[in-house]
């Protein structure tokens, strides 16, 4: 464990008076308990030693020992090591030093705990409300133990979020919450000088549902994977896997090798479908609907494959703690190979026909460009970071499931614009095909599930990272009593990437806003109704249920 020894040696040399204790559950995890006074210096030291800031976890332990705990986590990508620095303060005055002035991507995590736990952060550059609704009453902190999980305070009419001050001579252009080019409820106030963007403020979290609170109070360990799967409509398996791995790592539950292989196959199938979806959406956002139609036509085959493998197009429901639920039979194995070969062939056709298209080049090259230094400073992850020359991929750096058994390339580009993110995603698709083939070839026989025979010990910490199609998902679990996690923190890849959006937009054109936001991968759902349009008069009306029913019945009967 040279990396752990080195970090501990450096920390002990400089901060020996502030370190209370250390814990190394295995050679890939390190937890350091510190006194809260010098957290800023110690966090900076972690960055100097080669750490990459991931996320902070705040927990209310007021019913256990009367404290509130804050954990900052750092990944050491070159050493395959995940670390957390933990500190506790009395629950009646939870004040910490903010680390945001030095590590800007910690800004949202800290604002989150101002909202949810009532923590105070001194020197925070932007201590505004982030998560809670604007009419949520002051002084009610929903993640605290004394607040019931189903609390519904009455709404208020006359409150609104105060956007940042508009720069001198600029005009505000609101984008969202409902906007034709933005498929998710988030509000960007874009400050423009003419057509050029000079700044941006973000107000999001409009669909915050309190899943963490729900699962910490109402759900049992093995029910949470199914909730986790519904955090994201695109990368469901990623969240279920990350949560299960965090619990398994905290409780020391072994996972059968075959189950890990099946998990990996599901993750790669999900990556294929997600990247194809993104390719289509990106084409749609720049007004190139041919790509949209063709990418989604190809993607449909992977959805049908998912249906045959797991019983559902999406939200596969394959993963539970300790393993998976369904096996890959020899027939399914041939089916997967056939579909993968077919998609690879089709993708090559799409790839060749769009790669030289000047329309795409003009809309994406040089758009949303930021430097590698900024990408590292803002802790960007996934294809967004890899397009900016940051060579990180958790599948290679922190191998989980069966990724240490396969070989693959990590495409990295230095252009730093939207075009490079497009290339990264298309090239990753080819790697996914190769990974699935390797996995199917090497898959061992064996059990699918380790049955839990003893209760999971409370207050153990588990952290797991999974490379989602959009980047790195981090799940942190503190085990609890009564078959329920004490704390479950989810950090989706969009969380750090969205924080980098204002920087990506700076000095770009207003017309490029949709593709810049789209380049970090949005997900959307839409509903539509059937409308009947009278061609002669131009009137339109919505068909009733009875009409549609008779229409479809008659059609089916051939009448």
């Amino acid at each position: 464990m040279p990396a752990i020894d080195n970090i501990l040696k450096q920390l002990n040399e400089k901060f020996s008076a502030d370190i209370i204790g250390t814990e190394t559950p295995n050679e890939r995890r390190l937890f350091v308990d510190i006194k809260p006074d010098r957290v800023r210096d110690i966090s900076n030291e972690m960055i100097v030693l080669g750490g990459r800031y991931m996320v902070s976890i705040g927990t209310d332990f007021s019913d256990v020992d009367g404290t509130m705990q804050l954990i900052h986590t750092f990944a050491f990508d070159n050493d395959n090591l995940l670390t957390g620095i933990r500190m506790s303060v009395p629950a009646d005055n939870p004040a910490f030093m903010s680390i945001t002035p030095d590590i800007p991507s910690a800004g949202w995590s800290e604002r989150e705990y101002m909202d949810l736990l009532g923590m105070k952060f001194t020197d925070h550059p932007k201590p505004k409300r982030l998560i809670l609704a604007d009419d949520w009453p002051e002084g009610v902190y929903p993640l605290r133990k004394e607040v019931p999980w189903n609390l519904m305070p009455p709404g208020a009419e006359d409150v609104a979020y105060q956007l940042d001050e508009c720069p001198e001579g600029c005009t505000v252009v609101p984008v969202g919450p409902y906007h034709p080019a933005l498929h998710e409820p988030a509000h960007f106030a874009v400050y423009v000088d003419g057509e050029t963007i000079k700044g941006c403020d973000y107000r999001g979290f409009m669909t915050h549902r309190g899943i963490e609170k729900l699962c910490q109070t109402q759900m049992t360990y093995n029910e949470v994977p199914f909730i986790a799967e519904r955090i994201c409509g695109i990368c469901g398996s990623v969240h279920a896997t990350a949560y299960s791995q965090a619990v398994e790592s905290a409780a020391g539950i072994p996972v059968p090798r075959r189950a890990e292989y099946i998990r990996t196959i599901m993750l790669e199938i999900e990556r294929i479908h997600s990247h194809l979806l993104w390719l289509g959406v990106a084409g749609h956002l720049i007004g190139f609907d041919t790509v949209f139609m063709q990418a989604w036509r190809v993607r449909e085959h992977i959805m049908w494959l998912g249906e045959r493998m797991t019983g559902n197009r999406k939200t596969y429901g394959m993963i539970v703690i300790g393993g998976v639920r369904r096996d890959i039979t020899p027939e399914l194995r041939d089916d997967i190979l056939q579909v993968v070969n077919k998609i690879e062939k089709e993708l090559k056709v799409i790839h060749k026909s769009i790669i030289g298209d000047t329309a795409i080049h003009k809309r994406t090259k040089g758009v949303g460009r930021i430097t590698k230094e900024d990408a590292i400073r803002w802790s960007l992850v996934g294809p967004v970071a890899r397009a900016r020359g940051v060579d990180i991929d958790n599948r290679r750096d922190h191998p989980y499931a069966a990724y240490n058994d396969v070989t693959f390339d990590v495409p990295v580009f230095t252009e730093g614009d939207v075009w490079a993110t497009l290339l990264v995603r298309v090239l990753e698709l080819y790697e996914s095909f190769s990974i699935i083939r390797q996995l199917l070839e090497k898959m061992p026989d064996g059990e699918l599930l380790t049955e839990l025979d003893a209760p999971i010990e409370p207050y153990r910490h588990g952290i797991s990272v999974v490379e989602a199609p959009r980047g790195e998902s981090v799940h942190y679990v503190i085990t609890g009593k009564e078959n329920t996690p004490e704390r479950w923190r989810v950090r989706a890849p969009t969380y750090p990437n969205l924080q980098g959006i204002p920087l990506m937009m700076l000095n770009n054109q207003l017309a490029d806003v949709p593709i810049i936001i789209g380049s970090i991968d949005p997900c959307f759902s839409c509903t539509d109704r059937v409308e009947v349009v009278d061609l002669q008069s131009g009137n339109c009306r919505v068909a009733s249920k009875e009409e549609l029913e008779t229409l479809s019945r008659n059609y089916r009967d051939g009448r």
Partner: protein
Amino acid sequence: MWLLSKIKQVLMVIKPGVVTLQYPFVPRPAPANFRGIPYWDHQKCVGCGGCAGHCPARTIMIRDICQELRVMVYDASRCTYCGRCADVCPEHAITMTEHYELATNDKNDITETIELFMATCQRCGRCYDHENRNQIDRLSRIGFRYDNLEMRAVIPAGTQQIDTEMLKKTESYKRPERVGE
């Protein structure tokens, strides 16, 4: 370069042609492993409540009307079709069907209610062995469950969360009439 790309794109579009399915005019059967609406076989169900204990969406509710009668209600309007109930059922009484066209304007179409006599075995007519080998005891599901069938709310057993107001509303429960009467 530009023209070449456009020619390639035209070929890419023409080759597959129209791929749109004619659904719903042409039915599209679900594959064999599909997770559609679950089906309860009341002949096999022993009322252990394992499905209710594992349902992540809390769509399966149990109410013990009296010592002998246990009512189980499944309400698909909130179901996520994960299939955990079918996984954990010790008697294989639950199967995931391939029905997915479930849109309806009457909630009762997708609600299933089972009433079970609990003191005697449904299949052999003998009493349970309550002392040693009782599966229900092992599942820690002894005692009454007070789930609110009208409000579709699960009330966890063995806690202090039983709301007396809520309980009052469930007391007016009427047995559904028999089919055909």
